[in-house]
């Protein structure tokens, strides 16, 4: 269970650009829940993810995982149980290394990165099967540098790498936003499949209202540091894009978008 308790976060405190983003923000996410998060620009979606992952510090409040306070824990320690995929496909992979080397790095997560051989050759077949299951033909390009792949291929690889090892939380930060509609669809379907198979607690920020409605078992709409819509279970299941479109337009107009 992940809990954000009384989170306070200000940007540029003490300057004329001071922005108070979160003022007593609370959120509880149950184990195994798949939460889709939508909202206007600057509503705090990505900041929320950064706070959970430890990429930015909070000014007040607590972040609890299974009852343990992790607020003071460094980002890399938190990532030991977090898999994360970013909007930018280049953030989840190493461009100058091959697909095989990238997978080998991800496969070693949670263990020591010592002086053993970087790629475990006994695992290559498993990697090939994993890549083949996506159906993008990546299994024939194992020795290609990742920098030579398309954005969609890289994002697919990033998603596979993030979920390769058992993790407690999968954090998806607009991970289909930089892809063309067709590739975005493929990556989104793969995401749904992985989350279902691994039963991992997932938080997905997206600008695509249809994805938010179609995927996940809880929907949050963020606005000015608050969740103005929070539906789960049957209510979420019955939800249609049109139901939230009105509210979404309202808050978007308010923000000048």
């Amino acid at each position, binding site marked *: 269970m992940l809990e954000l308790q009384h989170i306070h976060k200000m940007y540029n405190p003490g300057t004329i650009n001071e922005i108070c983003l979160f003022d007593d923000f609370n959120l509880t996410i149950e184990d195994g829940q798949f939460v889709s998060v939508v909202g206007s620009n600057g509503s705090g979606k990505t900041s929320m993810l950064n706070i959970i992952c430890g990429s930015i510090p909070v000014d007040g409040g607590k972040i609890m995982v299974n009852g343990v306070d992790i607020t003071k824990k*460094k*980002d*890399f*320690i938190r*990532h*030991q*149980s*977090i*898999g*994360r995929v*970013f909007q930018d496909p*280049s*953030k*989840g*992979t*190493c*461009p*100058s*290394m091959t697909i095989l*080397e990238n997978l*080998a*790095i*991800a496969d*070693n*997560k*949670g263990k*020591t*990165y*010592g*002086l*053993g*051989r*970087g*790629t475990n050759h006994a695992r290559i077949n498993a990697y090939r099967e994993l890549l083949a299951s996506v159906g993008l033909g990546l299994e024939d390009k194992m020795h290609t540098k990742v920098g030579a792949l398309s954005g969609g291929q890289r994002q697919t690889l990033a998603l596979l790498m*993030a979920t390769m090892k058992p993790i407690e939380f999968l954090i998806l930060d607009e991970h289909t936003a930089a892809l063309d509609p067709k590739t975005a669809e493929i990556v989104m379907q793969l995401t749904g499949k992985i989350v279902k198979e691994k039963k991992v607690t997932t938080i997905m920020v997206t600008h695509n209202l249809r994805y938010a409605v179609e995927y996940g078992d809880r929907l949050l709409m963020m606005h000015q540091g608050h969740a103005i819509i929070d539906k789960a279970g049957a209510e979420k299941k019955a939800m249609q894009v049109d139901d939230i479109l009105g509210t979404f337009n309202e808050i978007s107009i308010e923000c000048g978008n």
Partner: protein
Amino acid sequence: MTLVLSVLEQGMIYAIMALGIYITYTILDFPDLTVDGSFPLGAALSAVLISKGMNPVLTLVIAFAAGAVAGTLTGLIHVKLKVRDLLSGIIMMTALYTVNLRIAGRANLPIYNMTTLFDNALVKKVFSGALAPFANTIIILIITLIMKFLLDWYMNTKSGYLLRAVGDNETIVTSMGVDKGVIKIIGLAIANGLVTLSGCIFAQQQRYFDISMGTGTMVIGLASVIIGISLLKKVTFIRVTTSVVIGSIVYKACVAIAIRLGMPSSDLKLITAVLFLVILVLGMDRKKRKKVA
């Protein structure tokens, strides 16, 4: 003939240093000026330890360790104290100047008639007669190749994978649950270990230590790395480390030719700098050059 041998010898000694710069500059994307201090650090240690009669092979080990400490300190200054990369190197370089003077005791220390890597009983026995003039070249070739293969091996370990990853994309290292700062420090330690080792061999080959030895190390190393990588870009079957070694030899040859053409040896640093500029500009992609203009 002597000229060719001396180019090969110095080129290969500097190649070990260039391998270090390859780690910091190409892999870590860290302009590490520590090397201008850690190269003479190796030379100073070498001169003092050799004149005290230490086993020459042992001096190599000590030099590498000392360089690794210097690199670690640069890394700590950058990672823990959050000083900018270039400044961290400059701070260490300046500090090392005094450290080197303290180690050597003075600005200049000759080590003639001592047991060195190139002048000992074993070498005299193995390289006798016609082989004798090639002794230095062969010894240096062996050491350089060992260091190259060790580095190749390290780059293919799990730890080496992360080192390559951190320069490529820091975020991925964090995502793997590893402190990226530690990986950077490891990289700087290995790099400066190699540079100091190179300085150690250089002092034994030249038979003296001089405090000004380190000036321009960074430039020589960078030039070697850039020549090696851009010359041999199309040759895919050789490793980058091999390209760097070849680049270093080519660079030394260029400098030797310039001196042969009548430039006085006091102009050496100027030649070094101008040659580096030429290489840098030629090495840039045509497109990039247009962009700057």
